[in-house]
């Protein structure tokens, strides 16, 4: 029997980016807010100080900062007629754990989505006709426009001190930025980061081929910055330990560097770490959340009652908690009905490696940051005419090499044996002169009827609950898209002067063992119709109006950009709706 705690105005489930944003906004409104986090509190001095943070084995290979699969994992299969089996160790994506969530160990790429991405179904149907889309593709509009989200993009960019070069300032195309981006109301708060040698070479080659390269917008800062909450960040030192690692230097935007030291001082905020919410409780009507039940590290159950519940865990765990709490109708692919688990997507990633003459090129590839890079956006979204190619979607491509930590970054040219003297000398000769962008091709992942999340019939977690089951495969549209983008990318790497260009196409079947980004999305999507979305345009549950669900689980499908800036902007958007509309008149903000 759970021990009952005294009631709060708001309980926040999961204390990463979106939980921290929402906690700060709602405490500003005077509400009494508690955040409950499954993992430990984390910070630079205790968890990733400069004395031992640069440890590729511990943080990258052994996953120090991530969730452990024996705590919770998922089952996986490619097709509905297969038996799903557990993900016993992480591969395709890396679920975060602990205060700060993925914001601790992300790369900090700060992309906005395109205006057309938010009205995707309408846009593509108008331009190409509905027959152009694959029959089983279930893409839909978001129920929100780019213009509505712009002030919230701006807010998150300024919270983080984002370093970049504007490409579209209030409709005016700016030299050196991304000419395809939607109009932004202000320049970036700080100038773009410096670019190492190979990244600069990529920019030059792309320009000579007629593209408009620009620096990737970065949450690793080019200079010192004081954010609107008065928190100070230091300039990035290009140490090359961002992705998979925490920043020791207070240079990477994270809840720890941009929100928490300010938030924690508020008398109407508190948090619990090492406490896992196992259920959102609803009253007998099923239409009103009464709070949450969580389990602490001793296995003891507690109930935290609250008037308003914010579900802001990692995308997959949002969906899992909705399924376990029996909120909303689970998706059924056979009848194509239900919403919880519907429109699950990932990211269609590939890369190209370039081997250069080591007597002429020394890239010092270990000098980097997580969001460094020169990119082109000519082939993203609907920035080009897809008519001749027979697929939809796209992505950015770029030299976005984020370091050269040697366990992962000692590549050898084609034809080299995998071991022995020839391998050893090839590694020695190529380490400093190889271009190895981790996600050089960063493509969209659109939704399909047979790609979804549900509950597994066989495998259980440590509480005896069913694991969540992922059914996911690559569809022809994404394979074609990736082939097209990878070829375009390879042309630029070749033009940089590479002797050998190795294309690593993404091919079916979708492989759960190969890392492809942690951008897993959907399953509790936002939209305009309760029959095809779990949330309305304000991220409010259609079924339980005092529940809001934040994060990439709300993406109806995934565009060809990194998700976090949009995740943060949507959290500000939902917070504004709660502050301006919901609190004045608690109930459904949109009529079904």
């Amino acid at each position, binding site marked *: 029997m759970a021990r009952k705690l005294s009631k709060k105005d708001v309980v926040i489930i999961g204390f990463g980016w979106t939980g921290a944003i929402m906690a700060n906004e709602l405490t500003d409104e005077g509400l009494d807010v508690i955040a409950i986090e499954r993992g430990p509190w984390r910070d630079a*001095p205790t968890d990733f100080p400069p004395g031992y943070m640069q440890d590729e084995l511990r943080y990258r290979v052994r996953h120090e900062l991530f969730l452990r699969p*024996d705590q919770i994992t998922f089952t996986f299969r490619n097709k509905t007629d297969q038996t799903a089996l*557990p993900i016993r160790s992480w591969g395709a994506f890396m679920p975060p754990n602990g205060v700060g969530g993925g914001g601790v160990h992300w790369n900090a790429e700060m992309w906005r989505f395109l205006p057309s991405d938010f009205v995707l179904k309408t846009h593509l149907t108008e331009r190409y006709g509905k027959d152009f889309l694959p029959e089983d593709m279930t893409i839909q509009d978001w129920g929100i426009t780019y213009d509505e989200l712009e002030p919230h993009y701006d807010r998150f960019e300024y919270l983080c001190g984002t370093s970049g070069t504007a490409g579209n300032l209030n409709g005016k195309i700016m030299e050196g930025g991304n000419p395809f981006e939607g109009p932004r109301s202000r320049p970036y708060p700080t100038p773009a980061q410096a670019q190492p040698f190979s990244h600069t070479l990529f920019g030059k080659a792309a320009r000579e081929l007629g593209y408009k390269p620009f620096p990737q917008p970065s949450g690793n800062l080019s200079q010192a910055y004081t954010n609107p909450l008065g928190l100070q960040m230091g300039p990035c030192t290009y140490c090359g330990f961002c992705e998979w690692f925490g920043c020791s230097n207070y240079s990477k935007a994270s809840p720890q560097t941009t929100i928490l030291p300010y938030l924690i001082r508020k008398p109407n905020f508190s*948090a619990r*770490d090492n406490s896992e919410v196992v259920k959102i409780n609803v009253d007998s009507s099923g239409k009103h959340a009464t709070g949450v039940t969580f389990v602490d590290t*001793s296995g003891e159950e*507690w109930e935290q009652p609250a008037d308003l519940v914010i579900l802001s865990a990692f995308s997959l765990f949002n969906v899992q908690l909705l399924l376990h709490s029996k909120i909303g109708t689970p998706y059924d692919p056979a009848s194509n009905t239900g919403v919880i688990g519907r429109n699950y997507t990932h990211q269609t990633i590939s890369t190209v490696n370039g081997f250069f003459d080591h007597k002429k090129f020394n890239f*010092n590839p270990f000098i980097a940051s997580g969001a460094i890079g020169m990119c082109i956006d000519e082939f993203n979204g609907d920035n080009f005419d897809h008519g001749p190619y027979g697929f939809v979607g796209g992505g950015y491509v770029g030299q976005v090499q984020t370091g050269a930590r040697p366990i992962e970054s000692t590549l050898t040219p084609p034809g080299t044996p995998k071991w022995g003297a020839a391998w050893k000398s090839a590694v020695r000769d190529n380490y*400093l002169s190889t271009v190895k962008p981790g996600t050089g091709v960063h493509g969209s992942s659109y939704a399909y009827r047979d790609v979804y999340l549900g509950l597994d019939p066989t495998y259980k977690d440590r509480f005896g609950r069913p694991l969540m089951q992922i059914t996911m495969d690559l569809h022809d549209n994404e394979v074609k898209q990736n082939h097209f983008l990878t070829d375009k990318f390879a042309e630029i790497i070749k033009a940089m002067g590479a002797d050998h260009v190795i294309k690593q196409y993404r091919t079916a079947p979708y492989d759960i063992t190969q890392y492809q980004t942690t951008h897993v999305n959907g399953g509790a999507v936002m939209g305009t119709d309760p029959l095809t979305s779990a949330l309305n345009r304000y991220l409010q549950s259609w079924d339980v109006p005092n529940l809001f669900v934040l994060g990439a689980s709300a993406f109806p499908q995934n565009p060809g950009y990194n998700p976090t800036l949009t995740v943060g902007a949507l959290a500000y958007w939902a917070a504004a709706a709660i502050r301006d509309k919901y609190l004045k008149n608690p109930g459904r903000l949109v009529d079904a």
Partner: protein
Amino acid sequence: MKLREESQMEARKSVSAVVRRREFLAGTAVLLFSTTKVGAATIAGQLPWMPNAGSPPPRAKLGPWEFFTGDEGRAIEAIADCVIPPDTETPGGKDSGCAVFIDRQLAGPYGRQDGLYVRPPFMTGTRSQGSQSEAGPAQKYRDALGALDRACKSKYSGKAFAELLAADQETVLKGLESGDLKLEGADGKAFFEQAIKDVQMGFFADPIYGGNRDMVAWKMIGYPGARYNYLDWVNRHNERFPLPPVSMTGRAEWTSQAR
């Protein structure tokens, strides 16, 4: 409700110190099976930060094998030297400590599959579903190294892998790599793929873990190691970075402790 209760905060601080210490000793972040009554404590008013609360990596100890038997140790050292042969500039896998690295890893959380999902049933799946093996890395090494020596002894008049001529060792490993040489009771091909990966990982990991002695691998490729600031170098293009590597334990020139 009043949130800041000083006594609660004090309790939280001491609990947190215990938790962090336990986490470090266990070598994993899994606390949920802990039998200690930690309870649900609240963090409020200030960040739960304590001086010296970090958990630096424990240094691999010199000395006898912690996981391998003598025979297994000799075999893995011989494999390490085949995967990374010594040359005039850089030591091979054995002298750079790759076998010690693997030994210490197999004796620790990695060898035991700590933190991984190991609940049954264990069913065979597709390649894209990932490994579904019940046996962890330590068990796989034990099975394969024993089977390798048995295979060598039957083929090379009683000689274990470590006792073979260099050319014969290479032939055996190429046989494992191609799948032509099958081991009894072990997947020889998968084992050798894993061994290549682990030897090379030990070669390039920080020396604190037992391999990459004196940072030989980092010197070989030109990686400056656990440095933290390249601000002066990000705009210096196509120039060789001039400073030698450092490890998490510093450099031999700085301290007699460094390896």
